[in-house]
């Protein structure tokens, strides 16, 4: 296959998503839809990171909302308490998340399966508890206000502006993730997923690779959290809580573990569905649970891989 064809194939999903980002606003009747779109891309960003960890490297994390919370509070605490401008806090938040991922990941990534799950769960809960209790820094359970982001003297606010920022960042994150997966590191991660012992026998530094992807996924989550905080103008500790982590995992699994495009689909489903189900009022929760169960039973590999398999099946 020629180099050009290969390049063309690899970038196709990215181009498709970029086109989607550009075209969707034509169908948006009001700012509400821009807000939903922005939220979808923000969550999708966090989900891409988590997908790298869960889908490719096969490591379950039930505490990823902790990193989202750190990113979110970084852009709140930095400007309010430390006088650091918000755009710098975006990067600092990512750095702190990455550093924390490094510190925490080294010991706990040795754990396997459900044990890793409970360790990450504990981490997420610890972050949420600290955010709730240290009211002097974080404003406590009611949270704190987030000063608006200013870029070159221009105040960034409005659902439409954040839609473009989130969309562009998501496309960038998508591209980076695809690149990562096609690189030697990505292939090493897939080998680790299939069999850790075999990967080790091949000479792959398993611990280091797992730590790398853990840090990368933490940075994705932190960035998403920062965006969410700046967009809403407010942060609350329940961002980092258990339910938030479960929501992220659900988005990964619904969209398809190991499918980066599935991250977008999963995020879309779980952001849009509660909005759609409001008509059912009291039955909303029950329906949400039912829909998740049905999706998982019948499209158990996730929406995107299952649909892809169905289409491929039909061709043969």
């Amino acid at each position, binding site marked *: 296959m020629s180099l050009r064809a290969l390049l063309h194939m690899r970038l196709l999903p990215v181009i498709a998503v970029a086109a989607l980002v550009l075209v969707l606003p034509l169908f948006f009747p*009001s*700012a*509400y839809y821009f*807000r*939903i779109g922005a*939220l979808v891309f923000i969550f999708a960003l966090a989900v891409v990171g988590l997908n790298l960890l869960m889908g490719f490297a096969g490591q379950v994390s039930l505490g990823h909302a902790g990193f989202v919370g750190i990113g979110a509070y970084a852009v709140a605490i930095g400007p309010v308490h430390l006088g650091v401008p918000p755009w710098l806090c975006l990067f600092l938040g990512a750095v702190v998340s990455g550093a924390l991922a490094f510190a925490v990941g080294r010991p706990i990534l040795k754990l396997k399966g459900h044990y890793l799950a409970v360790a990450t769960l504990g981490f997420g809960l610890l972050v949420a508890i600290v955010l*709730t*209790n240290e*009211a002097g820094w974080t404003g*406590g*359970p*009611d*949270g704190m*206000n987030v000063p608006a982001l200013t870029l070159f003297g221009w105040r960034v606010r409005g*659902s439409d502006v954040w839609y473009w920022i989130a969309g562009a960042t998501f496309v960038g994150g998508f591209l980076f993730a695809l690149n990562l997966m096609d690189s030697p590191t990505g292939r090493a991660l897939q080998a680790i997923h299939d069999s850790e012992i075999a990967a080790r026998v091949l000479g792959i530094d398993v611990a280091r690779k797992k730590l790398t992807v853990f840090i990368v996924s933490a940075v994705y989550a932190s960035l998403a959290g920062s965006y*969410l905080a700046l967009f*809403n*103008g*407010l942060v*609350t500790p*329940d*961002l980092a809580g258990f339910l938030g982590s479960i929501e992220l995992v659900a988005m990964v699994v619904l969209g398809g573990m190991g499918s980066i495009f599935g991250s977008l689909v999963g995020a879309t489903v779980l952001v849009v569905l*509660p*909005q759609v189900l*409001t008509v059912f*009022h*009291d039955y*909303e*929760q029950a329906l949400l649970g039912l829909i998740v169960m049905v999706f998982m039973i019948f499209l158990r590999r996730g929406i995107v891989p299952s649909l892809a398999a169905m289409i491929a099946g039909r061709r043969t």
Partner: protein
Amino acid sequence: MRAIQRLTVAAALGLSAVLAAGLQASAQIKIGAVLSVTGPASFLGDPEKKTLEIYVDEINAKGGVNGQKLQLIVYDDAANANSARTFATRLIEEDKVDAIVGGSTTGSTLAMMPVFEDAQVPFISLAGAVQIIEPVRKWTFKTPHTDRMACEKIFADLKSRNLTTIALISGTDAFGKSMRDQCVAVAPKAGIKIAHEESYGPRDSDMTPQLTNIKNAAGVQAVVNPGFGQGPAIVTRNYHQLGITLPFYQSHGVCSKEFIKLAGAAAEGVRLPCAALLIADKLPASDPQKPVVVNYAKTYQDKTKQAVSTFGGHAYDGLMILTAAMQRAKSADKAKVRDEIEKTKGYVGTGGIVNMSPTDHLGLNEAAFHMLEIRGGDWTLVPGT
């Protein structure tokens, strides 16, 4: 031929103008509500939703407001600030509501406030924290008493019993924390010293370690428990279990018969500040609030088969203040309605008698609270409060 055509066009235009005016007159007034119907604050949001639904129906049955029917649009934010903000945007952009009565929790209210202020839509919040109306924001009002008022009422009662050194045991939820912060802030001015503090998670099942520490703390003369939901019931039971005999004060977060039922015998002698709604039948006939609260309590209990709740009462007050303002403004125009809400004077509600002003978007003072004591499984009014 041309004359007939012109006449037809003119008639059609005239007819459509009349129809449009007619449609305008019968178009509904849209009231939005974002409430925490499920989730950790469903204790607040559920009675609020039921109250709003019951009374919107009642108002519509009586002909609506200014001849227009009310349409209630309720969304459930499950006490999640992000969801609250999304629904707030939806109410403004999609549903195009004329006013909002909602925001069960302070977190939801603070998340939604900027959206409503930017869109310049009147917003009556149902949350307790004093930050909602301090500093005063143009379009935001609220009906529940502030947690600061509750603290002041409790401290005044403590002073009258010559109890000046207290311990606090508060829930780490938003309600408990906010009230605890206010109590700490107003304590020096009220002449109260907080000697010891403990906290518990809102879902904890046993608070005896914290209460043991309070029991052993030197000089403590009384204990105050800011919190809501099941926590205070368990704290009260544990208090009784440990045999602590110091005077015990609860917060306005547990002003419901349920608390007495859950705490059981341990609730005997507990004091707490509550709105007149709780002692509707015990109010003297001369009390201006009596007809309102008796009526609301009866209606709520008949329609929902559940005990009346002060949170539902706040929603009732919010709706009534809003519709009264709309009637005075003779329209649903947002700016006019806002001005009329601000001019609310002498409104007798479940929470008290409301007198708003440009610098006071709550309109209640401590007189709206009554100090109650639980005796024999029922509320009794502490005389003179």
